[in-house]
């Protein structure tokens, strides 16, 4: 596989999966805090 192709799609995967994982973790954290406060 050409380095440019590898670089492009690796960047895409890392950014998108990283952002999705960040959102899920953040959601879990704020939901836990909300339940604790209740």
């Amino acid at each position, binding site marked *: 596989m050409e380095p440019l192709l590898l670089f*492009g799609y690796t*960047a895409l995967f890392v950014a998108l999966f990283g952002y999705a994982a960040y959102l899920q973790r953040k959601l879990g954290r704020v939901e836990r805090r909300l339940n604790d406060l209740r």
Partner: protein
Amino acid sequence: MKWGTLLFGTLSFALVFGYASKTMYGIEHGGNLLAYWHIALAWVASAALGTTFVGSVLFLRYRGRFWSRLAHSAGELGFLFATLTLLLGSAWGKVIWNSWWEWTDVRLVTFLIVWFIYAGYLVVSSATDPNTGDRYTAVYGVVGFVTVPISYASTRLWTPTFHETTIGNPEVSANIDPTTLLVTFVAATFLYVYLLGVRIQVHEVEDRLRGLTGGRR
């Protein structure tokens, strides 16, 4: 949405790597396969920034907190997609133009302006108080959107150098497979809607949390 993203995402990559031609503009190179997600990301970035515009207008009109959550969530996603569009486009440009960046290309420069405008939108949003400052962010979201259609129409408004007008142009020379592109568009749209839903949910829970703690974060 999650399963739609997975299904169409898998199908898109199967088509990109197994079916689509590596030859574009007469150049045979694997890097040409970046074009499919580059174009689809540009589409979802525009859709997201359009959502920010609509959410901002509706917030200014009706003042519902939902609209500002929608506008901010879409703005954040639009910025992410625009960043990836630039990154993949730059790598693809290295293949077909033998250059990472061309300041003479009107689409590139206007899209970079869009990117800076929405970086500014996120800065304004994070610098203002969510209870009182949403109005400023919304006004910025409305005014800043002007750059998006300008960037889209730039190849028609000014003489294109590298990017060519694609939609409605019978002389378009990029050898892009329409089926692969369509499937990739669907995958990117599913991904956008899924991420937008989760981001709005995070905002909702944060707002409830802020209500319980009296504004403390």
